[in-house]
């Protein structure tokens, strides 16, 4: 078990080095990246402390544009495919997930049965601290998501959203 854990940590370290080698990304302390070969970053991106990025084992991509900042403790789960436009900024502890549990399945199994839906966030979006972006969400350009909101569905450019489920602020 100790060897297994050591090997795992070495693999994670290697993925982090590969990320820093390939892309113009500022990687702060405690960042974890898995399946780095399916992840790409544009210019001058920042992953603040404790960010967790999970690529895809399903042939999908996690594509992050230029000048994107992921706030401390953020989580990007990209199994279903994830695209983040240029200049989009996340506050701390934002979660973007492209997967969700299949409640129709037998939930007592070694591995959970999951469903997937891609997420697309447009250019110049601001996502407030603690927000959760659910699978299948599409945001246009320059959208604002209030802190702790839970976002579902498709929204056009310049939409301001808040709440759970997040609704348009009129």
């Amino acid at each position, binding site marked *: 078990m100790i060897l297994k854990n050591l090997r795992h940590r070495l693999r994670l370290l290697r993925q982090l080095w590969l990320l820093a080698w390939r892309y113009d990304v500022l990687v702060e302390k405690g960042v974890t990246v898995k399946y780095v070969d399916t992840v790409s970053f544009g210019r001058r991106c920042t992953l603040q402390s404790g960010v967790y990025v999970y690529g895809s084992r399903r042939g999908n991509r996690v594509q992050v544009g230029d000048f994107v900042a992921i706030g401390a403790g953020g989580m990007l789960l990209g199994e279903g495919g994830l695209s983040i436009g240029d200049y989009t900024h996340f506050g701390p502890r934002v979660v973007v997930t492209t997967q*969700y549990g*299949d*409640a*129709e399945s037998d939930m007592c199994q070694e591995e959970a049965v999951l*469903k997937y*839906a891609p997420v697309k966030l447009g250019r110049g979006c601001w996502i407030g601290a603690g927000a959760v972006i*659910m*699978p*299948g969400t599409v945001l246009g350009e320059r959208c604002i998501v209030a802190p702790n909101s839970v976002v*579902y*569905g*498709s929204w056009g450019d310049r939409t301001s959203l808040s709440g759970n*489920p*997040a*609704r*348009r602020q009129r």
Partner: protein
Amino acid sequence: MEDRVRRIMASVFGVDMAQIGVEASAQTVEQWDSLRHMNLVVALEEEFGVRFTDQQIDELLSFRLIVLTLKELGAK
């Protein structure tokens, strides 16, 4: 109103509009899961300019109930 609801449901569930009959419900539409249910809720609110209560969100589990609730909320 029924046709607009049908169109939104077909779009959210990724099925043909013909599959959304008056008897359509969470039991008959295979794609109707918890995530798509929330997608349906926000899409209906946007389309009809209404806001469902938490209890209504829990109960919008069939085409008939959706139409009934929208009428109660004064949607046209």
